[in-house]
């Protein structure tokens, strides 16, 4: 009689590789079939998820292009420096021979910025940087210089987009869920209607809303005109740098709020009715029931909804591509739009990958925050 361990040693290689250490030999069919059945899906995930993901990190340190006769070279952190360099620089006023500040047309005269950022041997660290923004501090002028104005604009826009849309869409979705979470006839009809835009493609929604937002004959301007008895001045919602991003936010909420409403509803239904009955017996009113029964029961749902919206928002692309192409004046540039512009349109895979890596780091931090907030507390 052989022991199990001896029998295992004599078994063919594939059995020793695939069979769990503590499993009896007669289960080798299980092991083989199990492996074979998982293999096709695993192969796809490796080729189209794991490899591209790992490649993003490697390529972002090179100068890889989509099609190039030359092999890619190692560039170190160059791509990230080019995307993320930010420096503050103080311009001192021009002074005349007596040391007095020179004024012209009521304003202080400063030396030209390009004297410092173009081939100035005294300021090598400023070479090639461009002005992002500036402000007055005393007589001096503080200038924020960045290497890549458009990308930084895109990064800020995307973060603004995500941090506005997360509470806005999550909150509205909760209000809708609370409204729908009552036993009224036909309530499911309303649920179906509120959810409907979710199944409509974002491309379709964006193109449709381009017309709604139109500056001349747009539905929104006409509607606001009617509601204000003609006193509303038409706005070119997508053509104005101040209203373009808010317009995209409003439309995105309209399209996706039903999605998160459904997640809230699922969360609401996990709260036992007996808790509400107990609260009623204790004389709790509507707000108190929400504050002390509903909200504590929704804590994990709340974190989930906020995180899901934030991560989806970080991927902002379609709305920008269809509605504004990043304009006006870069007011709607987004991180993914820039990744596609550079990685695909300009075929600069390395820079596109570097942007992707930056995006992943942000998403990773958000996801870890969720882990931390929903951890089991005992």
């Amino acid at each position: 009689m052989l022991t199990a361990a001896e029998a295992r040693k004599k078994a063919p290689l594939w059995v020793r590789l695939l069979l769990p250490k503590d499993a009896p030999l007669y289960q080798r069919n299980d092991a083989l079939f199990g492996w074979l059945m998982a293999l096709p899906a695993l192969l796809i995930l490796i080729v189209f998820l794991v490899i591209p993901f790992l490649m993003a990190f490697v390529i972002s340190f090179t100068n890889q292009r989509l099609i190039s006769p030359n092999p890619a070279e190692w560039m170190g952190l160059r791509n990230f420096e080019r995307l993320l360099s930010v420096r503050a620089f103080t311009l001192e006023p021009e002074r005349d021979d007596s040391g007095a500040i020179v004024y012209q047309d009521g304003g202080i005269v400063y030396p030209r910025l390009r004297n410092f950022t173009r081939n100035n041997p005294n300021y090598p660290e400023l070479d090639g940087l461009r002005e992002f923004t500036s402000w007055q501090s005393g007589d001096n002028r503080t200038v924020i210089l960045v290497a890549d104005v458009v990308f930084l604009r895109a990064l800020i826009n995307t973060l603004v987009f995500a941090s506005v849309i997360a509470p806005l869409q999550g909150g509205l979705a909760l209000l809708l869920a609370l409204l729908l979470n009552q036993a009224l006839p036909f309530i499911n009809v309303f649920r179906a209607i509120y959810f409907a835009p979710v199944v409509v493609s974002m491309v379709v929604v964006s193109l449709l809303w381009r017309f709604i937002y139109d500056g001349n004959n747009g539905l929104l301007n006409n509607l606001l005109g009617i509601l204000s008895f003609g006193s509303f001045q038409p706005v070119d919602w997508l053509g104005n740098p101040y209203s373009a991003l808010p317009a995209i936010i409003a439309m995105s909420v309209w399209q996706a709020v039903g999605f998160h409403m459904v997640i809230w509803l699922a969360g609401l239904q996990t709260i036992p009715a007996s808790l509400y009955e107990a609260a009623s017996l204790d004389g709790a009113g509507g707000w108190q029931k929400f504050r002390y029964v509903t909200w504590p029961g929704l804590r994990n749902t709340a974190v989930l909804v906020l995180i899901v919206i934030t991560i989806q928002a970080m991927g902002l692309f379609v709305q920008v591509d269809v509605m504004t192409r990043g304009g006006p004046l870069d007011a709607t540039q987004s991180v993914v739009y820039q990744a596609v512009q550079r990685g695909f349109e300009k075929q600069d895979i390395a820079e596109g990958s570097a942007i992707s890596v930056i995006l992943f780091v942000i998403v990773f931090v958000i996801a870890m925050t969720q882990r931390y907030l929903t951890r089991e507390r005992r």
Partner: protein
Amino acid sequence: MNAMSFETRHNLSIGLRYALLILIATIFIFPILFMVMSSLKPDLQMLRDTASLRAFLPVGDISLNNYAEAFERVPIVQFAFNSVFTTSVSVAASLLLNSMAAFSFAFLQWRGKAILLSLIIATFIVPFEVIAIPMLLVANNLPWIGPEGIEIGWLNSYHVQIIPFIADSLGIFLFYQYFRDLPDELVEAARIDGASIWQIYARIIMPIAGPIVATAAILKFLVMWNAYIWPLMTIRSEELRPIMVGLQYFFQLNVAWGEIMAYLSMVTIPVLIFYLALQRAFIESIATSGIKG
């Protein structure tokens, strides 16, 4: 208020709730209604109608002319075929691959499966946008056996629109969760009766997996039908383009709004009908994916 009976106040409150529900419903319905109604009107009338509630009504000079013109301007039939083809192949293949993998994870014992499963769950936090650009490079360097032997590069093909999406970690996980909650006796009894592993999968487990098959199919359908960023980057030829990318024809034509609305209606109405018919399943799939994902 005191003069009112309890019943009157109750009815009033119910009435107010419905008024609110209906008001909100109009916000969600009217843009879609506007799209469909406008698609039936000549451009001039459509623009005039935006100044009144007529924008949402099928009134005036109603016809299908915009549809006819959209068909003439854009190879819609080709685009629709491409989308139907890539979507249906992806949905079918992903159901098979994801459920097979999940079956293996749930019922069969083999080495390394625990760690692979946790890796699969870990990939949930990688958004498609992060890997899209390096995936373009991967796709551009993969071999394919074509009519003229082995070719390098998957760009501009049907398979580049399908194969990367025929397995996904969310799909595997949804099936796995469903299978894990099934009673073990199902599989054990079948084994005692001498059923093979494939028979257990195909004849016993899959026939009772209806609800999760519907969920996975709907999620995959929405992703594939609405695909935009990936085909935008990988498809050059008109003959291979899916409908959402086909919409680009209209991006620059600000004058032809009627045709745009006709095209938008054509790509949306089938999905909306599908949704209304399977409304409960759609909403439950989203709820499941949201909670698990």
